């Protein structure tokens, strides 16, 4: 998902827990929210910083593939819509960074870790956006997959994270629908436009399935994260739900999901589908996807070239504060 393969601390049984840890787990089991200054196990805090931080980085880096098309949108209206969508993603990043900071990590530290590669962002944003139809596919599939994961996370145990998710979910539906609207337009357009839409679906289908991360049935990390309610569903559950919802949407568009094994399984009440190529996924995670270098470079450059601006505004703020102190009434 936007947070993939987040490592969490080892799982403890009720007997192994300290009385504090047991009381904490009981609060979570009662669906109480945990707030920033309250006692929490160190593992809970660390895992959340990793997860929320990775989620925030994904929102920010996720602006790049779509930002690529803002100046080339086919109409002024499409341009305004895409700009608003990308601006929302910046907002999502900011809500999430603030939530992570309540756990005792600073914004600069998070930035440093993104830029050094110590923290990751979602694999999906390492794929290029080659045509305008990709703006449709990204909104429809990528935001669609993100919604699958973010909706249940509104109920997560950590208060600031849950509130950020509620705010984000309110805005996500616009993202998916504007993407699907682009796909409808293209799919009902000229044969060449329909071909572009099909090509975008072909390229984004498997990377979208990878967003949920590899199967985590036997992972201890996800068992602990699920006990803490910072992961609400298994990766496979969410992936299945995504496929079940998306296939009929593709059919409506008259487009073909690039999976010959895809069929409705009457018995299971779900679609059977092919797994993505997990080797490709691990390569992308390691930094060897088609756009990893370009994405990180863009983020580092923005950070470096914005330094004089951040420092200038800070110096100005300090100077005017000092001036106000020296002459309290003159500044009014």
């Amino acid at each position: 998902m936007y947070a993939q393969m987040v490592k969490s601390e080892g799982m403890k049984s009720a007997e192994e827990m300290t009385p504090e840890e047991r009381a904490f787990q009981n609060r979570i089991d009662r669906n109480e929210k945990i707030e920033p200054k309250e006692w929490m196990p160190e593992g809970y805090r660390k895992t959340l910083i990793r997860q929320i931080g990775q989620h925030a980085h994904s929102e920010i880096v996720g602006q790049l593939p779509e930002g690529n098309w803002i100046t080339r949108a086919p109409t002024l209206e499409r341009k305004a819509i895409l700009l608003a969508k990308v601006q929302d993603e910046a907002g999502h990043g900011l809500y999430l960074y603030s939530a992570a900071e309540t756990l005792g990590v600073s914004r600069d530290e998070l930035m440093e870790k993104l830029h050094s590669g110590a923290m990751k962002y979602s694999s999906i944003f390492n794929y290029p956006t080659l045509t305008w139809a990709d703006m449709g596919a990204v909104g429809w599939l990528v935001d669609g997959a993100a919604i699958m994961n973010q909706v249940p996370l509104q109920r997560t145990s950590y208060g600031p994270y849950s509130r950020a998710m509620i705010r984000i979910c309110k805005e996500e539906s616009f993202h998916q629908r504007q993407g699907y609207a682009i796909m409808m337009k293209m799919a009902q357009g000229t044969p060449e436009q329909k071909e572009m839409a099909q090509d975008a679906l072909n390229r984004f289908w498997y990377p979208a399935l990878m967003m949920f991360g590899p199967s985590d049935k036997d992972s201890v990390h996800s068992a602990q994260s699920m006990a803490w309610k910072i992961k609400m569903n298994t990766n496979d559950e969410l992936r299945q739900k995504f496929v079940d919802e998306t296939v009929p949407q593709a059919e409506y568009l008259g487009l073909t999901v690039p999976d010959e094994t895809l069929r409705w399984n009457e018995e299971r009440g779900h679609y059977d589908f092919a797994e993505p190529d997990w080797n490709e996924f691990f390569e992308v995670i390691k930094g060897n996807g088609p756009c990893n270098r370009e994405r990180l470079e863009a983020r580092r450059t923005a950070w470096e070239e914005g330094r004089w601006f951040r420092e200038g505004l800070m110096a100005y703020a300090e100077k005017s504060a000092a001036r106000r102190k020296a002459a309290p009434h003159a500044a009014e």
Partner: protein
Amino acid sequence: MSRKEWPLWEIFIRGQHGLNHRHVGSLHAPDAEMAIRNARDVYTRRKEGVSIWVVRSADITASAPSEKGPMFDPAESKVYRHPTFFDIPDEVGHM
């Protein structure tokens, strides 16, 4: 690493005329004026408010979570503070 991080601000928004300002989240900004400008873009992109307050996070004093019991439990036994504590006969009519 930048020389000094912009300070953190808590953002409060009045959603509609007649309502209280409510805490909506926080953000970094060099000063109060920039905090308000940034809050407009971060928290009111869909007309969520008619007024914004910003307060430096460092200036907020909070009650300690560990004192939750002594702080709030005393109110629990004062059930007579609620109108339903008193039985008023139906004949009296609405009160």
